[in-house]
């Protein structure tokens, strides 16, 4: 199934999608990589506010290549490997109410459990398709933490139009896609013997 979705996403909209569905996203992305996850959770645990409400945007595992200074332009913005963020993600979903995460390569069982429990989606975009991804970016709305974390790790707020196709990998009702493919692959590999 192919659908257009818009941020902020309701829990109902999130729960209506299934692993394997193809979606195009319009609205706001916030890029968060390893360091930004740590910083966001540290702020939350200290009772301090985040610069934006992550429940109203989609979290994007991405360290974009940008040009400019103050007036930013995104040159390339493909996804980075999501599994690096696995440890931080369940708390990001449960404590900050994140409804959608976009990345690549799949995520683990703890993220899948949090998605099901709290109503969150994890979708994947083609890794390396960074120029196509940048074309969907209408505007860089803001950048936070750039001085502190460096350009790839900063929190970039990107307004996007028809960003996709994204493939739902982990849905909010217990379905997974890449994890199933990988499980079957490991079984097949175990059964292989060279001549």
């Amino acid at each position, binding site marked *: 199934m192919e659908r257009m979705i818009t941020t902020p996403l309701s829990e109902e909209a999130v729960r209506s999608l299934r692993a394997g569905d193809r979606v195009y996203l319009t609205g706001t992305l916030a890029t968060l990589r390893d360091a930004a996850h740590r910083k966001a959770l540290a702020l939350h645990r200290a009772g301090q506010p985040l610069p934006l409400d992550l429940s109203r945007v989609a979290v994007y595992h991405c360290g974009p290549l940008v040009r400019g200074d103050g007036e930013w332009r995104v040159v390339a913005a493909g996804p980075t490997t999501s599994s690096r963020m696995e440890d931080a993600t369940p708390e990001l979903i449960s404590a900050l109410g994140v409804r959608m995460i976009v990345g690549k390569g799949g995520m683990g069982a703890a993220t899948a459990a949090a998605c099901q429990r709290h109503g969150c989606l994890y979708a994947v975009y083609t890794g*390396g398709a960074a120029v196509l991804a940048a074309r969907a970016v209408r505007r860089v709305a803001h950048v936070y933490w750039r001085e502190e974390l460096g350009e790839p790790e900063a929190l970039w707020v990107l307004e996007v139009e028809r960003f996709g196709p994204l493939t739902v*990998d982990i849905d909010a009702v217990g379905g997974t896609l890449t994890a199933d493919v990988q499980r079957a692959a490991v079984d097949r590999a175990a059964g292989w013997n*060279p001549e």
Partner: protein
Amino acid sequence: MTPEEMAAAVAELMRRAVTTLPGDVLVALRQAVAREEEPARNQLQAMLDNAQAAAHTGAPLCQDTGTPTFFVTTGAEFPWLSLIRPAIREGVRRATAAVPLRPNAVDPLSGVNSGDNVGRHVPVIYWEVVEGDRCRITALPKGGGSENMSTLAMLRPSEGLPGAQRFIVDWMARAGGKPCPPTVVGVGLGGGADLALHLAKRSLLRPVGGRSPLPEVARMEEALVEAINATGIGPMGLGGRTTVLDVHVDIAHRHPASLPVAIVVQCWAHRRADVTISPRGEMTWSG
């Protein structure tokens, strides 16, 4: 040649490497599209469309413009040897600002990004001195997502070649979609730990579709391609017939007690470019 000319050449080499996908990779991706079904076909088509968009706009194909890595094969009589290392550092600095490249050099102690892709031991330069008076510099910008799936196993020699091959196929199944498949896999077999990893990385310079000149190794490469593709990981781990575009194996004599097996994984965006410089400073480009 002046230091300025050499630095400009390195900057141009990096620009070519990150904005264009070599012809052998494009051919392999097109062949893969033809044999795949959805959702694999859609992923591969996005890769090809993206390569075209990058070539058209002059933007880097992937935001991860990699760790700048250079293989220098120089004739011992090449007259500008002392210019090469400073020119690579300066050329990378310039390309970082001009192309642009994403700053990817982080101090492991402080966590501070140098901002210009230059740091301690970075750019990475591997030297090989041969006979003659020409110098060939190959740029291989190496992405972090695929490099993270690289590994080394020190197997027991009794596990032999079957054990080594089973290790490789199992590893690539477990890597799943993380290294941006379809990947190109470099394997170093034998040597010590460092040599095995070096051979694995260097073997990525061989064209996709090119076999080892050693018949037994070439057969092993074909068997590994078939077995890894049979796992069904597919493009971006979403399932399909194409998990690797190729596997390149290189071997070295090993210690009797050791069987090192190194795997270096390269994403589908297998970017590289090279320039050959004559003793008169004439440059021939490819990639």
